[in-house]
């Protein structure tokens, strides 16, 4: 690719740089703060210490919240995979009457304000006398992670060359084996990308958990918010750093699994 030149080129560079700065700089600030010796979180940090990490790791409530978030995100991702893959396949490949309507409903969490969805869910679950916070959180999170699987898998399915599947059928493969041996390998990157989005959306979710969590079952973002309202010391930055690292690990895991470039379709 050639270098960009002229006024348009300059604008492109400025915008790209600004984009990167605004995405990465706040993360750098947070990570830097987590090593600060000051007692309140101010930038620039003063000194260097890992004591906040020791404190945070020793904090039972933090460990509980972190574990809750990891388990919740993992469960929501698995459930979204189990529901989203067949749903996307059926929507794309079978001539289901009302498929468009079903797809719109499945994807509606993308559009509806999640905070309102969470409140509505809380009222609905109260009506049904559903009192188990773990179950409620799980259902709420599946609701907002499922669209990511449906969307990415549908997009991948549309890109699969249908004659590959037809060739496999003529060669004697039953519909299931066509899917397993031919379709699935073609859409694996899309599935992986969808799972990554689902995991991160759940792990990072505030508006749903805000309504459905309890003092006993509290995901990390809610715990962070609670801690922050008590005292704004660098331990907040430390906990945030754990969140960032989890995201990075998820991305690396995906890269190892299927290759991120393929997964993101670039």
């Amino acid at each position, binding site marked *: 690719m050639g270098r960009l030149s002229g006024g348009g080129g300059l604008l492109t560079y400025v915008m790209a740089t600004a984009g990167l700065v605004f995405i990465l700089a706040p993360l750098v600030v947070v990570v830097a703060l987590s090593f600060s010796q000051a007692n309140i979180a101010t930038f620039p940090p003063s000194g260097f210490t890992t004591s906040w990490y020791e404190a945070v790791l020793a904090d039972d409530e933090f460990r509980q919240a972190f574990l809750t978030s990891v388990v919740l995100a993992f469960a929501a991702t698995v459930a979204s995979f189990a529901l989203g893959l067949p749903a996307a396949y059926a929507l794309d490949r079978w001539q289901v009457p009302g498929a468009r309507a079903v797809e719109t409903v499945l994807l509606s969490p993308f559009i509806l304000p999640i905070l309102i969805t969470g409140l509505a869910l809380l009222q609905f679950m109260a009506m049904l006398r559903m009192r188990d916070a773990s179950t409620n959180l799980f259902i709420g999170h599946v609701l907002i992670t499922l669209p990511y699987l449906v969307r990415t898998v549908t997009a991948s399915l549309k890109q699969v*060359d249908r*004659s*590959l599947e*037809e*060739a*496999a*059928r*003529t*060669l*004697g*493969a*039953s*519909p299931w*084996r*066509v899917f397993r*041996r*031919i379709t699935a*390998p*073609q859409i694996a990157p899309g599935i992986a990308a969808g799972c990554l989005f689902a995991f991160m959306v759940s792990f990072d979710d505030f508006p749903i958990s805000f309504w459905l969590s309890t003092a006993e079952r509290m995901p990390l973002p809610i715990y962070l918010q609670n801690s922050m309202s008590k005292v704004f010391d660098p331990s907040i930055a430390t906990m945030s750093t754990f969140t960032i690292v989890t995201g990075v690990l998820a991305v690396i895991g995906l890269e190892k699994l299927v290759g991120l470039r393929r997964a993101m379709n670039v």
Partner: protein
Amino acid sequence: MTAKATAAKVTSRAADLAVSGLTKVFGTTIAVDGITLRIASGELVALLGPSGCGKTTTLRMIAGLVEPTEGDVLIGGLRVTRTPVHRRNIGMLFQNYALFPHLSVAENVAFGLEMRGVSKAAIRPKVAAALALVQLGSFADRLPAALSGGQQQRVALARAIVIEPALLLLDEPLGALDRNLRESMQVEIRQIQKRLGITAVLVTHDQEEALTMADRVVIMNGGRLEQVGTPEEIYSRPRTRFVASFIGASNFLHGRVIGHDGSGLRIALTGGGEACMSHSDGETKEVLISVRPEAVSLAALEERAQHGGSGLPATVQQVVYRGQATHVHMTLDDGAPLLAFLPNRQGEKAKEDFSPGNRVWASWPSSSNWPVADG
């Protein structure tokens, strides 16, 4: 292949094919309209026609990829109309090759055998034999993306024949290749098909491909069969104007029967001149005659008496040198076009004394007159 492996041979279990009253309606469009056709075991039949004529839909109904609205498909005498694709035992070639991109060449070829539950040990020699047949033995471990288009289609051919299909279906298999490669692949596929005795159906819009490869050609138009016959029959005895113009080039002359003589009908051509025709289908007064351009020869108008047979006057419009032949485009006195292909012998250009504006006498042997239906 290791020395121990049993030498495998690619064999065939070809069957005959019959379709009867095959019809497909998409919404309000009739794509295929009641096609009935029998194809003998080991025969290669080409479905030829312009795009939208229903040839691909017909092939896909035979394959089972499209469900017919009406009619039946019988393979080896068995009705398979409701049999799913994967139990029909067919091999199919697609225009875009449709090789599985995540599997190696050998794995692609092995796929159909695996689906049939053939053991790994039995698969290996069969795959090797099939790849040897298409001269790609050394490419077994490559991925399809590393092969050229022609090589990819040969892998697809190996993959289709290794399962010993009852039927080989070819859906515009060479459409994506350039001309020279296409011609050599036509010969190669034809040789392998003949050697193995596989029953095959070829869909193409390329008339040369159909004539080169097929035992019989089926001309389709508007979802119907226009004519079925050997390439020679289709070319020299077209039933309709459509067939005559679709296969090769043709001149069409309107005329009226004015009498009989010893050799046949005498016909007055609307553009002036006369024609004789021994072929006749009854008492028709108005006739449409097809004359192939290569049958037409040209002479100066004054020499018309020396040229017997059928003929009429024409005005030269354009002379185009085309290598093998010189194409002379003319108009008749009633405004209709007339085309003559004059062969160029080595070292001499044909009839260079004809130039635009010349009045000429176009004539041809009366045996070249062929009546066609105006369809």
